[in-house]
Protein backbone atom coordinates (compact mmCIF):
# COMPACT_ATOMS: atom_id res chain seq x y z
CA UNK A 1 0.00 0.00 0.00
CA UNK A 2 1.76 3.13 -1.16
CA UNK A 3 1.68 6.25 0.98
CA UNK A 4 0.86 8.28 -2.08
CA UNK A 5 -2.11 6.10 -2.87
CA UNK A 6 -3.29 6.29 0.70
CA UNK A 7 -3.06 10.06 0.63
CA UNK A 8 -5.11 10.43 -2.53
CA UNK A 9 -7.68 7.85 -1.40
CA UNK A 10 -8.26 9.62 1.88
CA UNK A 11 -8.22 13.25 0.75
CA UNK A 12 -9.72 13.25 -2.75
CA UNK A 13 -13.20 14.05 -1.40
CA UNK A 14 -12.05 17.17 0.38
CA UNK A 15 -9.56 18.68 -2.09
CA UNK A 16 -11.68 18.33 -5.21
CA UNK A 17 -12.76 21.97 -5.00
CA UNK A 18 -9.28 23.45 -4.43
CA UNK A 19 -7.95 25.91 -6.95
CA UNK A 20 -5.19 25.30 -9.44
CA UNK A 21 -2.64 22.52 -9.05
CA UNK A 22 -3.47 22.09 -5.38
CA UNK A 23 -6.13 19.57 -6.38
CA UNK A 24 -3.76 17.50 -8.59
CA UNK A 25 -0.12 17.71 -7.57
CA UNK A 26 1.04 15.90 -4.44
CA UNK A 27 3.48 18.44 -2.98
CA UNK A 28 1.06 21.35 -3.31
CA UNK A 29 -1.92 19.25 -2.23
CA UNK A 30 -0.24 18.09 0.97
CA UNK A 31 0.35 21.64 2.09
CA UNK A 32 -3.14 22.76 1.10
CA UNK A 33 -4.77 19.88 2.94
CA UNK A 34 -2.78 20.54 6.08
CA UNK A 35 -3.86 24.22 6.02
CA UNK A 36 -7.44 23.17 5.40
CA UNK A 37 -7.39 20.91 8.47
CA UNK A 38 -5.92 23.70 10.58
CA UNK A 39 -8.59 26.16 9.41
CA UNK A 40 -11.29 23.59 10.15
CA UNK A 41 -10.00 23.07 13.70
CA UNK A 42 -9.87 26.79 14.37
CA UNK A 43 -13.32 27.27 12.85
CA UNK A 44 -14.91 24.65 15.10
CA UNK A 45 -14.00 26.87 18.06
CA UNK A 46 -14.96 30.08 16.23
CA UNK A 47 -18.31 28.61 15.19
CA UNK A 48 -19.54 28.63 18.77
CA UNK A 49 -18.49 32.29 19.07
CA UNK A 50 -20.13 33.35 15.82
CA UNK A 51 -23.35 31.46 16.59
CA UNK A 52 -23.64 33.25 19.93
CA UNK A 53 -22.96 36.56 18.23
CA UNK A 54 -25.74 35.86 15.73
CA UNK A 55 -28.17 34.90 18.52
CA UNK A 56 -27.40 38.13 20.34
CA UNK A 57 -27.93 40.20 17.18
CA UNK A 58 -31.27 38.51 16.54
CA UNK A 59 -32.50 38.87 20.12
CA UNK A 60 -31.43 42.52 20.07
CA UNK A 61 -33.41 43.09 16.86
CA UNK A 62 -36.49 41.38 18.26
CA UNK A 63 -36.35 43.22 21.57
CA UNK A 64 -35.93 46.56 19.82
CA UNK A 65 -39.15 45.82 17.99
CA UNK A 66 -40.74 45.53 21.42
CA UNK A 67 -39.24 48.91 22.44
CA UNK A 68 -36.62 47.41 24.71
CA UNK A 69 -32.83 47.21 24.39
CA UNK A 70 -30.91 43.95 24.49
CA UNK A 71 -28.79 44.62 27.64
CA UNK A 72 -31.90 45.74 29.53
CA UNK A 73 -33.76 42.61 28.44
CA UNK A 74 -30.99 40.20 29.46
CA UNK A 75 -30.26 41.88 32.78
CA UNK A 76 -33.89 42.04 33.79
CA UNK A 77 -34.62 38.45 32.75
CA UNK A 78 -31.64 37.46 34.89
CA UNK A 79 -33.06 39.42 37.81
CA UNK A 80 -36.37 37.60 37.36
CA UNK A 81 -34.51 34.23 37.46
CA UNK A 82 -35.61 33.47 33.90
CA UNK A 83 -32.67 31.32 32.85
CA UNK A 84 -33.32 31.25 29.11
CA UNK A 85 -30.13 31.29 27.09
CA UNK A 86 -29.56 33.32 23.96
CA UNK A 87 -30.14 30.38 21.65
CA UNK A 88 -33.61 29.74 23.06
CA UNK A 89 -34.46 33.45 23.13
CA UNK A 90 -33.46 33.72 19.47
CA UNK A 91 -35.65 30.75 18.50
CA UNK A 92 -38.58 32.13 20.48
CA UNK A 93 -38.23 35.51 18.86
CA UNK A 94 -38.50 33.94 15.41
CA UNK A 95 -41.08 31.19 15.88
CA UNK A 96 -42.98 32.31 19.01
CA UNK A 97 -43.29 36.09 18.78
CA UNK A 98 -46.07 36.33 21.35
CA UNK A 99 -44.01 34.44 23.94
CA UNK A 100 -41.10 36.74 23.24
CA UNK A 101 -43.39 39.73 23.62
CA UNK A 102 -44.48 38.47 27.04
CA UNK A 103 -40.83 37.99 28.04
CA UNK A 104 -40.06 41.59 27.09
CA UNK A 105 -43.12 42.71 29.05
CA UNK A 106 -41.83 40.80 32.06
CA UNK A 107 -38.37 42.34 31.72
CA UNK A 108 -39.89 45.80 31.30
CA UNK A 109 -42.00 45.33 34.42
CA UNK A 110 -38.96 44.21 36.41
CA UNK A 111 -36.97 47.15 35.08
CA UNK A 112 -39.57 49.76 36.03
CA UNK A 113 -40.30 48.11 39.37
CA UNK A 114 -38.31 50.67 41.33
CA UNK A 115 -39.88 53.60 39.50
CA UNK A 116 -43.37 52.24 40.04
CA UNK A 117 -42.68 51.67 43.72
CA UNK A 118 -41.47 55.25 44.05
CA UNK A 119 -44.06 57.01 41.89
CA UNK A 120 -46.90 54.59 41.32
CA UNK A 121 -49.79 53.59 43.53
CA UNK A 122 -48.45 50.18 44.50
CA UNK A 123 -50.64 48.36 41.98
CA UNK A 124 -49.30 45.24 40.29
CA UNK A 125 -48.44 45.79 36.61
CA UNK A 126 -51.23 44.36 34.43
CA UNK A 127 -50.51 41.05 32.78
CA UNK A 128 -47.35 40.24 34.74
CA UNK A 129 -47.50 37.35 37.16
CA UNK A 130 -45.09 38.09 39.96
CA UNK A 131 -44.15 36.59 43.27
CA UNK A 132 -41.23 37.17 45.59
CA UNK A 133 -38.50 34.56 45.20
CA UNK A 134 -35.08 33.98 46.65
CA UNK A 135 -32.43 34.32 43.96
CA UNK A 136 -30.26 31.20 43.71
Amino acid at each position, binding site marked *: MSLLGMFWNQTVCLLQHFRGRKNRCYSLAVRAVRRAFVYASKARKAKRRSMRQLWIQRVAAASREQHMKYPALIHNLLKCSVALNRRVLCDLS*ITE*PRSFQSLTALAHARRTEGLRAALGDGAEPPGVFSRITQLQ
Partner: protein
Amino acid sequence: MKYGTTFSFCWSGGSKLLLYHYSHVEVKFIKCFFKMSSFSRSAQQWATFARSWFLIDARMQPPGKIASMCSVRLQGKHKPIYHPLSDIGDHVVVMNTRHIAFSGNKWEQKVYSSHTGYPGSFKQLTAAQMHKKDPTAIIKLAVYGMLPKNLTRRTMMQRLHLFPDDVLPEDILKNLTEELPQPREIPRKLSEYTQEERNAFPMLWTPNVSGSPGSASIRHNPLTKAPLSE
Protein backbone atom coordinates in the same frame (compact mmCIF):
# COMPACT_ATOMS: atom_id res chain seq x y z
CA MET B 1 -36.93 27.13 9.59
CA LYS B 2 -40.45 27.74 10.79
CA TYR B 3 -41.85 31.25 10.72
CA GLY B 4 -43.97 33.17 13.17
CA THR B 5 -47.56 32.15 12.91
CA THR B 6 -49.23 35.16 14.49
CA PHE B 7 -50.74 38.11 12.80
CA SER B 8 -50.38 41.70 12.04
CA PHE B 9 -48.14 43.01 14.86
CA CYS B 10 -45.50 40.58 13.57
CA TRP B 11 -42.51 42.26 11.97
CA SER B 12 -42.97 41.00 8.44
CA GLY B 13 -44.20 43.78 6.18
CA GLY B 14 -46.69 41.64 4.32
CA SER B 15 -49.77 42.31 6.41
CA LYS B 16 -49.91 46.12 6.30
CA LEU B 17 -51.99 48.25 3.93
CA LEU B 18 -51.27 51.85 3.05
CA LEU B 19 -52.98 55.13 2.32
CA TYR B 20 -51.15 58.04 0.76
CA HIS B 21 -51.91 61.73 0.68
CA TYR B 22 -50.52 63.23 -2.48
CA SER B 23 -50.52 66.86 -1.28
CA HIS B 24 -47.52 66.23 0.90
CA VAL B 25 -45.89 62.95 1.69
CA GLU B 26 -47.75 61.35 4.55
CA VAL B 27 -47.85 57.64 4.97
CA LYS B 28 -50.52 56.00 7.09
CA PHE B 29 -51.06 52.32 7.43
CA ILE B 30 -54.05 50.29 8.46
CA LYS B 31 -53.36 46.95 10.05
CA CYS B 32 -55.12 44.12 8.34
CA PHE B 33 -56.43 41.59 10.79
CA PHE B 34 -55.93 38.34 8.94
CA LYS B 35 -53.64 35.56 10.11
CA MET B 36 -50.44 34.77 8.34
CA SER B 37 -50.96 31.19 9.48
CA SER B 38 -53.78 30.94 6.95
CA PHE B 39 -51.20 31.47 4.18
CA SER B 40 -49.55 28.57 2.41
CA ARG B 41 -45.95 27.85 3.36
CA SER B 42 -44.56 29.52 0.26
CA ALA B 43 -46.72 32.59 0.86
CA GLN B 44 -45.53 32.75 4.47
CA GLN B 45 -41.93 32.57 3.28
CA TRP B 46 -42.55 35.30 0.72
CA ALA B 47 -44.19 37.55 3.32
CA THR B 48 -41.43 36.94 5.86
CA PHE B 49 -38.56 37.72 3.51
CA ALA B 50 -40.24 40.55 1.62
CA ARG B 51 -38.29 43.76 1.33
CA SER B 52 -39.99 46.78 2.93
CA TRP B 53 -39.59 50.40 1.97
CA PHE B 54 -39.06 52.79 4.87
CA LEU B 55 -39.48 56.56 4.74
CA ILE B 56 -37.54 58.95 7.00
CA ASP B 57 -38.03 62.71 7.13
CA ALA B 58 -34.67 64.32 7.85
CA ARG B 59 -35.97 67.83 8.45
CA MET B 60 -34.19 69.41 11.47
CA GLN B 61 -32.58 66.06 12.34
CA PRO B 62 -28.93 65.32 13.07
CA PRO B 63 -27.57 63.48 10.00
CA GLY B 64 -25.64 60.95 12.09
CA LYS B 65 -28.79 59.73 13.84
CA ILE B 66 -30.61 59.49 10.51
CA ALA B 67 -27.67 57.59 9.06
CA SER B 68 -27.56 55.08 11.91
CA MET B 69 -31.28 54.38 11.53
CA CYS B 70 -30.76 53.91 7.80
CA SER B 71 -27.77 51.60 8.20
CA VAL B 72 -29.64 49.37 10.68
CA ARG B 73 -32.48 48.89 8.23
CA LEU B 74 -30.31 48.55 5.15
CA GLN B 75 -28.43 45.67 6.78
CA GLY B 76 -31.63 44.03 8.03
CA LYS B 77 -30.51 44.22 11.65
CA HIS B 78 -34.01 45.23 12.72
CA LYS B 79 -35.31 41.76 11.84
CA PRO B 80 -35.05 38.69 14.11
CA ILE B 81 -34.15 36.59 11.04
CA TYR B 82 -31.01 38.63 10.46
CA HIS B 83 -27.95 36.96 8.97
CA PRO B 84 -25.07 38.88 7.34
CA LEU B 85 -25.15 36.66 4.26
CA SER B 86 -28.91 36.61 3.78
CA ASP B 87 -29.32 39.94 1.98
CA ILE B 88 -32.46 40.80 3.98
CA GLY B 89 -31.93 44.53 4.08
CA ASP B 90 -34.79 46.85 3.24
CA HIS B 91 -35.04 49.98 1.13
CA VAL B 92 -34.80 53.31 2.93
CA VAL B 93 -35.99 56.59 1.44
CA VAL B 94 -34.75 59.77 3.13
CA MET B 95 -36.43 63.01 2.22
CA ASN B 96 -35.62 66.64 3.09
CA THR B 97 -31.89 65.93 3.28
CA ARG B 98 -31.36 69.58 2.38
CA HIS B 99 -32.78 70.54 5.80
CA ILE B 100 -30.63 68.43 8.10
CA ALA B 101 -29.34 70.09 11.25
CA PHE B 102 -25.83 69.53 12.54
CA SER B 103 -25.38 70.32 16.22
CA GLY B 104 -22.58 72.56 17.43
CA ASN B 105 -20.28 74.23 14.93
CA LYS B 106 -19.99 71.22 12.65
CA TRP B 107 -21.15 73.11 9.58
CA GLU B 108 -17.88 75.04 9.74
CA GLN B 109 -15.64 72.59 11.61
CA LYS B 110 -16.43 69.18 10.11
CA VAL B 111 -14.13 68.53 7.16
CA TYR B 112 -14.68 66.01 4.40
CA SER B 113 -11.37 65.05 2.77
CA SER B 114 -10.81 63.23 -0.47
CA HIS B 115 -7.85 62.36 -2.69
CA THR B 116 -8.13 60.95 -6.19
CA GLY B 117 -4.58 59.57 -6.07
CA TYR B 118 -3.12 62.07 -8.53
CA PRO B 119 -0.61 64.55 -7.11
CA GLY B 120 -2.10 67.84 -6.00
CA SER B 121 -5.66 66.55 -5.79
CA PHE B 122 -6.15 66.53 -2.06
CA LYS B 123 -9.47 68.26 -1.49
CA GLN B 124 -10.87 69.32 1.84
CA LEU B 125 -14.40 70.63 2.07
CA THR B 126 -16.26 71.83 5.10
CA ALA B 127 -19.67 70.36 5.72
CA ALA B 128 -21.31 73.62 4.63
CA GLN B 129 -19.48 73.62 1.27
CA MET B 130 -20.19 69.94 0.72
CA HIS B 131 -23.87 70.47 1.49
CA LYS B 132 -24.09 73.38 -0.92
CA LYS B 133 -22.47 71.33 -3.67
CA ASP B 134 -24.66 68.28 -3.12
CA PRO B 135 -27.46 68.32 -0.50
CA THR B 136 -27.56 64.53 -0.25
CA ALA B 137 -23.81 63.94 0.13
CA ILE B 138 -23.56 64.31 3.90
CA ILE B 139 -26.11 61.62 4.69
CA LYS B 140 -24.78 59.40 1.91
CA LEU B 141 -21.24 59.53 3.30
CA ALA B 142 -22.49 59.02 6.84
CA VAL B 143 -24.46 55.90 5.89
CA TYR B 144 -21.58 54.59 3.76
CA GLY B 145 -19.29 54.84 6.79
CA MET B 146 -21.76 53.07 9.05
CA LEU B 147 -22.36 50.04 6.85
CA PRO B 148 -20.12 46.95 7.21
CA LYS B 149 -16.98 47.32 5.12
CA ASN B 150 -17.55 44.37 2.81
CA LEU B 151 -18.83 43.68 -0.67
CA THR B 152 -22.47 43.90 0.38
CA ARG B 153 -22.04 47.59 1.23
CA ARG B 154 -22.48 48.75 -2.37
CA THR B 155 -25.74 46.81 -2.80
CA MET B 156 -27.02 48.28 0.44
CA MET B 157 -26.13 51.79 -0.76
CA GLN B 158 -28.10 51.13 -3.91
CA ARG B 159 -31.14 50.48 -1.73
CA LEU B 160 -30.74 53.86 -0.04
CA HIS B 161 -32.69 56.62 -1.80
CA LEU B 162 -31.94 60.22 -0.86
CA PHE B 163 -34.00 63.22 -1.86
CA PRO B 164 -33.11 66.79 -0.97
CA ASP B 165 -36.75 67.92 -0.69
CA ASP B 166 -40.05 66.26 0.02
CA VAL B 167 -40.83 65.74 -3.66
CA LEU B 168 -40.63 62.01 -4.27
CA PRO B 169 -41.06 60.27 -7.61
CA GLU B 170 -44.26 58.30 -8.25
CA ASP B 171 -42.72 54.84 -8.34
CA ILE B 172 -41.00 55.32 -4.98
CA LEU B 173 -44.16 56.74 -3.42
CA LYS B 174 -46.02 53.64 -4.51
CA ASN B 175 -43.48 51.34 -2.85
CA LEU B 176 -43.33 52.94 0.58
CA THR B 177 -44.64 50.80 3.43
CA GLU B 178 -43.73 52.53 6.66
CA GLU B 179 -42.68 55.93 7.95
CA LEU B 180 -40.18 55.89 10.78
CA PRO B 181 -40.47 58.38 13.65
CA GLN B 182 -37.86 61.13 13.72
CA PRO B 183 -34.99 60.52 16.17
CA ARG B 184 -34.86 64.08 17.47
CA GLU B 185 -37.78 66.03 18.85
CA ILE B 186 -37.74 69.38 17.09
CA PRO B 187 -37.72 72.17 19.69
CA ARG B 188 -40.27 74.91 19.16
CA LYS B 189 -39.25 78.42 18.31
CA LEU B 190 -40.23 81.27 20.60
CA SER B 191 -42.65 82.51 17.96
CA GLU B 192 -44.43 79.14 18.08
CA TYR B 193 -45.34 79.48 21.74
CA THR B 194 -48.74 81.02 22.48
CA GLN B 195 -49.00 84.09 24.67
CA GLU B 196 -50.70 82.02 27.40
CA GLU B 197 -47.79 79.55 27.48
CA ARG B 198 -45.32 82.41 27.67
CA ASN B 199 -47.19 83.97 30.57
CA ALA B 200 -47.42 80.64 32.35
CA PHE B 201 -43.66 80.04 32.03
CA PRO B 202 -41.97 79.85 35.47
CA MET B 203 -40.57 83.24 36.24
CA LEU B 204 -37.04 84.00 37.32
CA TRP B 205 -36.11 86.93 39.44
CA THR B 206 -34.42 89.64 37.43
CA PRO B 207 -32.61 92.57 39.03
CA ASN B 208 -34.07 95.96 38.51
CA VAL B 209 -32.71 97.25 35.21
CA SER B 210 -33.79 100.92 35.34
CA GLY B 211 -33.34 101.85 39.00
CA SER B 212 -30.19 102.36 41.10
CA PRO B 213 -29.00 99.57 43.41
CA GLY B 214 -30.98 99.61 46.61
CA SER B 215 -34.16 100.89 45.07
CA ALA B 216 -37.21 98.69 44.92
CA SER B 217 -36.79 96.19 42.13
CA ILE B 218 -39.61 95.78 39.70
CA ARG B 219 -39.92 92.16 38.68
CA HIS B 220 -40.38 91.51 35.02
CA ASN B 221 -41.63 88.49 33.20
CA PRO B 222 -38.44 87.60 31.24
CA LEU B 223 -40.39 86.40 28.20
CA THR B 224 -42.86 89.22 27.76
CA LYS B 225 -40.75 91.93 29.44
CA ALA B 226 -43.92 93.27 31.06
CA PRO B 227 -43.54 94.41 34.65
CA LEU B 228 -45.40 92.25 37.15
CA SER B 229 -47.58 93.77 39.78
CA GLU B 230 -47.08 92.35 43.26
